[in-house]
């Protein structure tokens, strides 16, 4: 699903200006990373796209146009947001259940997705019985289960340790390469952005605005384990860091 954002400005009614004149165009099937310092409004931008902001609290100008139905949208949160009282399988089925898919088909699809994220055998567990990495896999499976045309991800691996993060990044790539979903991936981790995305959008500190966009000319399928430390990766890291550095530093001064 295409995403067109035009001159989007956003401020909380208490006066904090979060985004200023954001222009961004994401093509169908593209994988774009939104990279920026903490508090630059990355998450708010995702929430605006998902229409999750309360208009009583937030004032918006500009336009967000989606090339499809807003209900064909998936969102993987920083915290997994699994329903704690539902077993793993029932959590994965949730989106399908909301869409009124028949029980048998739901179950087939859920088991398929759980296999895809490497969690076969854990169908009957409750979320609290799983590790953080496993829970985030369930959240990923839950989102992909209903085949969203646009998938928003808000630092989904931010709470994981380095090893689990790399493993899940590799899995996300593998899955994305097999589907046609557009991915908007928010992160403040430069390496993560380069490893995953086709384009990296660097946002400035608040009020967030698009500072620069980088193409990542690494061919897919990618292997994050190989890429990390490669010459091309290091070169890109150096280039983008030069832009990001000032935002991080000035953010620290504020």
């Amino acid at each position, binding site marked *: 699903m295409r995403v067109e954002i035009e001159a989007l400005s956003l401020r909380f009614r208490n006066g904090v200006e979060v985004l200023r004149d954001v222009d961004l165009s994401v093509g169908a099937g593209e994988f774009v990373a939104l990279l920026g310092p903490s508090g630059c409004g990355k998450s708010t931008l995702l929430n605006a796209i998902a229409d*999750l902001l309360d208009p009583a609290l937030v004032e918006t100008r500009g336009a967000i146009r989606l090339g499809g139905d807003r209900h064909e949208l998936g969102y993987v949160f920083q915290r997994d947001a699994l329903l704690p009282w*539902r077993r793993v399988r029932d959590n994965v089925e949730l989106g399908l259940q909301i869409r009124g898919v028949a029980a048998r088909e739901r179950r087939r699809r859920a088991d398929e997705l759980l296999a895809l994220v490497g969690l076969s055998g854990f169908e009957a567990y409750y979320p*609290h019985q799983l590790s953080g990495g496993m829970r985030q896999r369930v959240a990923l499976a839950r989102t992909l289960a209903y085949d969203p045309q646009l998938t928003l991800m808000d630092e989904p691996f931010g709470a994981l340790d380095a090893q689990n993060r790399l493993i899940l990044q590799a899995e996300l790539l593998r899955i994305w390469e097999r589907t046609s979903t557009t991915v908007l991936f928010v992160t403040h981790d430069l390496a993560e952005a380069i490893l995953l995305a086709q384009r990296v959008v660097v946002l400035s500190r608040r009020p967030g605005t698009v500072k620069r966009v980088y193409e990542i000319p690494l061919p897919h399928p990618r292997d994050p384990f190989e890429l990390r430390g490669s010459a091309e990766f290091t070169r890109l890291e150096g280039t983008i860091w030069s832009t990001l550095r000032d935002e991080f530093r000035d953010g620290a001064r504020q």
Partner: protein
Amino acid sequence: MRRALTLAAARVALIAFVFVAWEAVTGGFGLRPLVDPIVLGRPSLVFADLYEYARGGLLLTDSVATLEAALAGLVLGMLGGVGLGLAFGYWRTVADVFDPIIAGLNSLPRVAMAPVLILWFGLGIASKIVVSFSLVFFIIFYNTYLGVRSVDAELVKAVRVMGGGRLAVARFVLLPSVFSWIFAALRTSVSFALAGAVVGEFVGSTTGLGYRMVIATGLLQTTRVYAILLLLMIIAVSLIAIAKRVEERLLRWRPGGPLE
């Protein structure tokens, strides 16, 4: 396993000790009584009386009467509490307006309301149900209300993004979340329901365990009083054990719940 057996044995020994000591102090085993059984009863007499009480069928009639009132109070209290809790959780403004009244009613020692309630609802079962209800209602109401207010906003967001409307949010997030709060209060509610029924019977009734106890106290039949107290304890412990099982079954998804 070994530890569980030791524990069970120790518990049985302790209970046996309490009864033996009680019996000895009140003049059992041919000893000179340290305390008059009129004051403290005596286990052997209490058990004999319990048997006597049961044999005539009166024990069953009284127990059924009390349990009926307690159960009705529990069910109605839960329904009412959930209903109003959900409504208040949904309409915050209404909740804020009513807050002082609810807080006032709740802070009132409702047991002290029993005489008035008997006046309103008569000597029959209705007044016992109302006393029991008034105790259960507030526990469940507050738990429901807190349950609604403490619903995880992240979960609501998750359901909404998946295309869920208000109904889906209520079904998949709100109600399960509220039920977990209600079931967590089940044990307290059960013992309050029983207490409410018995207190109602104390104040004015023509049947039930509480009624029989008041009569016995008036006639200085201490043995009967202790017999009924013992019976009430057994009933309460059993009901609470059942409530605990229900609670564990329904809340097994919670952290710290049993692994399968």
